[in-house]
């Protein structure tokens, strides 16, 4: 009875480690792609285009203004890139901690105090991302507002806050605490001979 239970656990761990190794590769790939993506195409973005026109590019729609008076933004890409940097840094923190957790899973010893701490870091990074994306979104919006000065066009800076991200962060924080207590139980178990 006890043995068959252990066997099932070992098999499950084996499958889990296989999945984890695939995830590890995917995460590394995702890290590279996300860094490039946030650097190259933050949205929405103003584009300098040849001729007297201004393009407002959102994820699904390009709005082109043809006006003689259209101001040409010169540092749009630079500023969008710089504002995306702190968020990218937080993303890298999340991925790096996740990678470390997965490597302990691969080693077959995920119940260590470090993993509880890593989960907590991930939660805090998610909180930071939620706040930073609100700030940088409004800041780039404010900056772009100055660029679009066209007759008949009204622009409004939008403060967009995503409570879902905070929710996920809280959930992970709870998991970290569950993990911490689990680690304490495992230490007790390990010292029971």
């Amino acid at each position: 009875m006890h043995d068959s239970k252990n066997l099932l656990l070992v098999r499950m761990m084996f499958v889990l480690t296989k999945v984890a190794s695939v995830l590890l590769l995917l995460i590394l790939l995702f890290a590279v792609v996300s860094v490039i993506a946030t650097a190259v195409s933050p949205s929405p973005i103003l584009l300098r285009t040849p001729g007297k026109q201004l393009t407002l590019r959102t994820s699904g729609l390009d709005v082109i203004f043809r006006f003689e008076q259209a101001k040409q933004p010169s540092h749009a890409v630079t500023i969008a890139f710089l504002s995306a940097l702190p968020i990218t840094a937080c993303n890298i923190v999340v991925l790096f901690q996740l990678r470390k957790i997965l490597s302990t899973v691969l080693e077959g010893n995920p119940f260590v105090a470090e993993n509880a701490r890593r989960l907590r870091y991930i939660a805090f990074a998610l909180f930071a991302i939620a706040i930073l994306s609100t700030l940088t979104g409004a800041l780039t919006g404010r900056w772009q507002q100055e660029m679009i000065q066209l007759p008949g066009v009204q622009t409004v800076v939008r403060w967009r806050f995503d409570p879902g991200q905070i929710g996920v962060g809280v959930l992970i924080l709870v998991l970290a605490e569950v993990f911490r207590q689990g680690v304490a139980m495992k230490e007790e178990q390990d010292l029971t001979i």
Partner: protein
Amino acid sequence: MDMKTGEIVIHLDRVMLDRNISLSELAERVGITLANLSILKNNKARAIRFSTLAAICQALDCQPGDILKYSNIEE
């Protein structure tokens, strides 16, 4: 749990000396690893299973009282 109690200490040395048995031999007979037996012998363990205690008592042909002692706090 502020109440201070004494602690249980394990004395394996004397009984092992009497039976003329080595640590690794005892570990093999009891069916636990040498590392775990060392933890037990050096009083680093936090708890002992009844099954382990029974196995040790069988291997050493002794009673739990022969290897477990209660030491009072010094006053």
